[in-house]
């Protein structure tokens, strides 16, 4: 099936926005901490898991979503939230711990919750998987044709919640699509030291659901596989499992020395960086002109800069507001 030009371009625009967002966050995060790294210091304290390199997984899925669809993501959530269209200013403000943030500064970068679009993430591996099943269950009960997407890492596929979630989704024939971001590492542990088989997509058969491996970190390949899976879910055809081989370009979190990955591995990743390969393809195929590209980059950067400026200039919550929102 052909892919509309708009989608091809929109995916690229989202990728640019994501990468630039991650770069800006990284810069600000490290700026305040180096040379004597203090994780508690700076405008953005705490752990920071960035997704540079994994943009294709997020943007390839998003063109198929519609209003009311729900996403649960992981400790590495920015790319997915941005692709889905979560308010960038509120998201940035949350990461800066500001009162204007999605959670008034209570959640931080691992706990971004948005209602429109519906997005949630968490710091516990595989924690969002059953929640996506539950969102899909609600959709089914309510007779809507919305779908839920659950993103998770290769490391998460060995957590019990993976198994229970896929079984439930298949058993109840729910509109949920499980998307494994296989960057081959769970922090320092390579997939072959954690996973008894080569491809998690093969585990779909344990639940009688379709499982597809996308072996390239390519937005178009993701797009095509996700289109089918999401359409099937929307039509009442039940859940699927998609595994995308992707790259985490940077350390697991900022500050990670990344000593467990070889220089060759890192060089190979840089080589195949989708931020190089994808636009090159769009340009060479004439989908995009250099001028359009420049314009698109400018706009994406402006949106990010604006969001970060908003975050920086926003006030902190009052200390005693810590006591609010335990209960509704």
């Amino acid at each position, binding site marked *: 099936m052909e892919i509309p030009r708009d989608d091809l371009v929109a995916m690229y625009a989202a990728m640019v926005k994501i990468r630039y967002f991650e770069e800006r966050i990284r810069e600000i995060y490290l700026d305040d901490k180096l040379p004597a790294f203090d994780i508690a210091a700076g405008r953005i304290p705490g752990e920071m898991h960035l997704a540079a390199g994994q943009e294709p997984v997020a943007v390839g899925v998003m063109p198929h979503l519609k209003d009311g669809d729900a996403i649960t993501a992981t400790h590495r959530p920015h790319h997915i939230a941005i692709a889905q269209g979560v308010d960038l200013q509120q998201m940035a403000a949350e990461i800066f711990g500001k009162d204007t943030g999605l959670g008034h500064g209570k959640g931080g970068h691992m706990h971004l*919750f948005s209602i429109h679009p519906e997005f949630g993430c968490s710091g516990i591996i595989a924690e969002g998987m*059953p929640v996506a*099943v*539950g969102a899909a269950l609600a959709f089914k009960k309510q007779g809507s044709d919305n779908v839920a997407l659950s993103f998770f890492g290769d490391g998460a596929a060995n957590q019990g919640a993976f198994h229970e979630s896929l079984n439930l989704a298949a058993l109840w024939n729910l509109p949920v699509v499980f998307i494994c971001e296989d960057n081959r590492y769970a922090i320092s542990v390579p997939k072959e030291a954690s996973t008894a088989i080569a491809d998690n997509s093969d585990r779909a058969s344990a639940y009688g659901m379709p499982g597809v491996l996308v072996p390239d970190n390519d937005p178009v390949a993701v797009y095509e596989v996700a289109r089918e899976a999401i359409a099937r879910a929307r039509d009442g055809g039940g859940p699927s499992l998609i595994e995308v081989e992707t790259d985490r370009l940077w350390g697991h979190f900022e500050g990670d020395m990344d000593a467990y990955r070889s220089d060759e591995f890192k060089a190979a990743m840089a080589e195949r960086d989708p931020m190089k390969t994808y636009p090159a393809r769009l340009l060479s195929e004439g989908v995009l002109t250099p001028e359009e590209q420049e314009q698109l980059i400018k706009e994406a950067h402006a949106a990010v800069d604006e969001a970060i400026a908003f975050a920086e200039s926003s006030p902190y919550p009052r200390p005693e507001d810590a006591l609010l929102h*335990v209960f509704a």
Partner: protein
Amino acid sequence: MTTLTERKLTTQKAIAEAIAQEMEADESVFVMGEDVGVYGGIFGATEGLLDRFGPDRVMDTPISETGFIGAAIGAAINGMRPIAELMFVDFFGVCMDQIYNNMAKIHYFSGGNVKVPMVLTTACGGGYSDAGQHSQTLWGMFAHLPGMKVVVPSNPYDAKGLMIAAIRDDNPVVYMFHKGVLGLGWMTPNPRAIGPVPEEPYTVPLGKAAVAREGTDVSVVTVGLTVHRALDAAETLEAKGISTEVVDLRSLVPLDREAIVASVRKTHRLLVVDEDYRSFGMTGEVITTAIEGAFDYLDAPPARIAVPDVPIPYSRPLEQFVLPDADKIVAGVEALMAG
């Protein structure tokens, strides 16, 4: 208020009725859990619901507590009001992440934007030789972790009203029913497990203790089945000339600290009775609450009776040794009065 014509129900039937009435009134309420369907719940909390509401609203689940409790969270965020049953509270360990890190925290993390209106029902308590993985109460642990209300009814009237309040509450509520207060036909008969219950829906507010018996000499503060034990003890003590006030906390979160303090200010003596483990739990919290609010009123150091920090043993003499009962409460009160 009790009249001869008043309808009486067991606590179990009162719970099932409360759920049924809320399901009737609100399409978004549904039930999920192991054996909640044709079996009606191992402890009958969902008795009759499958027949009445069908399998879409009364859903049997696999033994996947992380999966289905997490799914309840997702459904709650998306406009439903699920009731998820964890068959025995002792099983919390296979799904606690969803309960305490997710269900209980999403509202806070979201800065108040996302609501998680769900009820987690669960059976607790021992006394019938079900050993250490099926007899715990563990409410102290749930109450320690912020973000969930924790309700523990002791009688049919409260059970119905607290359940309806829990379902209507916009927060996650852990509704813990002690097996010994349910009035089940297959458990040791308990005359206090049956009582008048109005037919129409009503609520009992979460976070309000009840004075189960008024007294002037000593306050016994407790929750769940040991409310019954304390009431039994109070009768014995009355015969011995000691007037015992029994405070039924009814919920641990919110904890009705005012009720605790008020009772202690009145009686000047406090015995806390708990079927949970003694250390780092409810007894310490209630005693500390009294210290914080009524230190100068105390005629004796507050005392406590609880499970002495051992797993619940199987064999009857062992189990009876570790569980609070009326005799131990009588002895505890007498020691307090002497002290």
